[in-house]
């Protein structure tokens, strides 16, 4: 069974080409093309339908403690009205079973947003971790809403124009939400939520809108000049920003430490799912790590390509690891990749990726690959 977004008819009208991702038929690209959509997000504003992400409502007195036991990060570091990136671990192996964002809407109301294919796994884990004496209400509400990501340096400006037009159906100021903030607003009289989150490396927001009124929201944004962008552009944007994708940089056989995301794990907060396995993994020594690769030309290494030492006499040397994601970087004009490599490989080293049998020379780098908007904002603080 393939799911469709509440926005599907809008995408058809906009001339989208579709692809199935995590069981969802979603826009891959629109007639402008992936490169134009990518550039619109870096330079202006792009709007993405990300309704394939799951939405799991966790509410009630036991919600906080249930989430603390289920995920690796510590909600004690934030407060209601904030969002947090976190991991669900496999209890046996400490592999990352899913990476989620939690929107903390109000005191005892949370929205957990898993990857499309992992929603049922996250619901199951939450159900196992809720306690009998202090139960949490856990409900998959994915089908009730659309999630629209508005990303790019002009994202907030576009949203503001939509709010301030005469007779706007928007109430509230979702464009004012802070980075990693969560706030309510209304669209056409319906309750909606905005979070200062995204997956592009640029500033922007994501809005959860009730399904019945979501098509008008997306169409209004496009009408105000946001460029509709598909999942292909979302992937080139996140790769340039060095952001992991579950099933590639995260998944079976990859722990948060190997993904370079140790900050997502809080050892101070007490027990959490997979804690013991992760502690054993940490004690045994981390042997591999996600690194960036920049190819010398336009051709990118691709997921699954083997990476070998590049300075061996007479050709490729010992195997160092495997490419997890690779694509062309519109920002650099060259091929880029993320790869799970031996921990001994350091930025600046020369390696080769074996691309369909041919050696492609690459340099090891620390992502992000391009100066994204969020990186520039961090540096100017």
């Amino acid at each position, binding site marked *: 069974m393939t799911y469709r977004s509440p926005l599907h008819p809008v995408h058809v009208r906009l001339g989208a*080409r579709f692809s199935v991702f995590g069981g969802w038929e979603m826009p*891959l*690209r629109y007639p402008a*093309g*992936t*490169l134009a959509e990518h550039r619109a997000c870096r330079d202006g504003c792009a709007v993405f339908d990300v309704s394939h992400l799951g939405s799991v409502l966790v509410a009630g007195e036991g919600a906080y403690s249930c989430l603390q036991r289920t995920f690796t990060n510590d909600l004690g570091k934030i407060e209601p009205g904030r969002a947090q990136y976190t991991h669900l671990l496999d209890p046996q192996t400490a592999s990352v079973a899913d990476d989620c964002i939690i929107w903390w809407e109000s005191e005892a109301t949370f929205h957990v947003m898993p990857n499309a294919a992992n929603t049922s796994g996250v619901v199951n884990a939450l159900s196992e971790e809720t306690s009998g004496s202090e139960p949490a209400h856990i409900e998959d509400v994915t089908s009730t809403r659309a999630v629209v990501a508005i990303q790019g340096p002009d994202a907030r400006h576009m949203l503001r124009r939509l709010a301030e037009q005469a007779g706007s159906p928007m109430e509230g100021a979702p464009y004012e939400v802070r980075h990693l903030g969560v706030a309510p607003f209304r669209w056409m009289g319906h309750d909606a939520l905005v979070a200062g989150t995204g997956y592009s490396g640029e500033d922007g927001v994501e809005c959860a809108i009730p399904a019945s009124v979501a098509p008008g929201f997306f169409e209004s944004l496009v009408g105000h000049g946001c460029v509709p962008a598909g999942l*292909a552009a979302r*992937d*080139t944007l996140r790769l340039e920003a060095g952001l992991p994708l579950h099933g590639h940089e995260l998944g079976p056989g990859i722990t948060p430490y190997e993904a370079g995301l140790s900050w997502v794990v809080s050892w101070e907060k007490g027990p959490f799912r997979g804690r013991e396995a992760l502690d054993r993994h940490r004690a045994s020594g981390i042997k591999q790590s996600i690194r960036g690769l920049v190819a010398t*030309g*336009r*051709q*990118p290494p*691709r997921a699954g390509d083997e990476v070998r030492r590049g300075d061996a006499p007479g050709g490729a040397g010992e195997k160092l690891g495997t490419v997890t994601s690779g*694509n*062309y970087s519109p920002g650099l004009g060259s*091929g880029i990749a993320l790869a799970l490599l031996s921990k001994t490989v350091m930025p600046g080293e020369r390696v080769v990726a074996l691309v*369909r049998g041919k050696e492609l020379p690459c340099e090891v780098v620390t992502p992000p690959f391009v100066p994204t908007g969020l990186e520039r904002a961090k540096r100017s603080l």
Partner: protein
Amino acid sequence: MEVPAALRYSSDHEWAAMDGAEIRVGITDYAQDALGDVVYVQLPEPGRKVEAGEVIGEVESTKSVSEIYAPVSGTIRSVNTELSDAPEELNQDPYGRGWICVIEPASSGDWDGLLDATAYQALTAG
């Protein structure tokens, strides 16, 4: 979808144009549209002898990698080196500036076995 009447086509979505004694080769409008933005083209080596149906190069888009097959047997006489820096020509002008290579055919038989525009249109309409 543009399918020029004067060209011949392979079922792998290459086009072939008779150019004197030589045959110019590229990928069709249908193929470039299906691929999306082309970001890298691997061209064949000039002088190489190829058999019809043999892989002579690769076209890589942001989404996928596709092989280019020789529509006829013969010898690669020239390649479009402009594509190395401007692979987007394949999207913008697949039958013109986006040509891939010129093959000197070993015989005339392969050309006669290629699809005409009507047959190719029927193939891609399905």
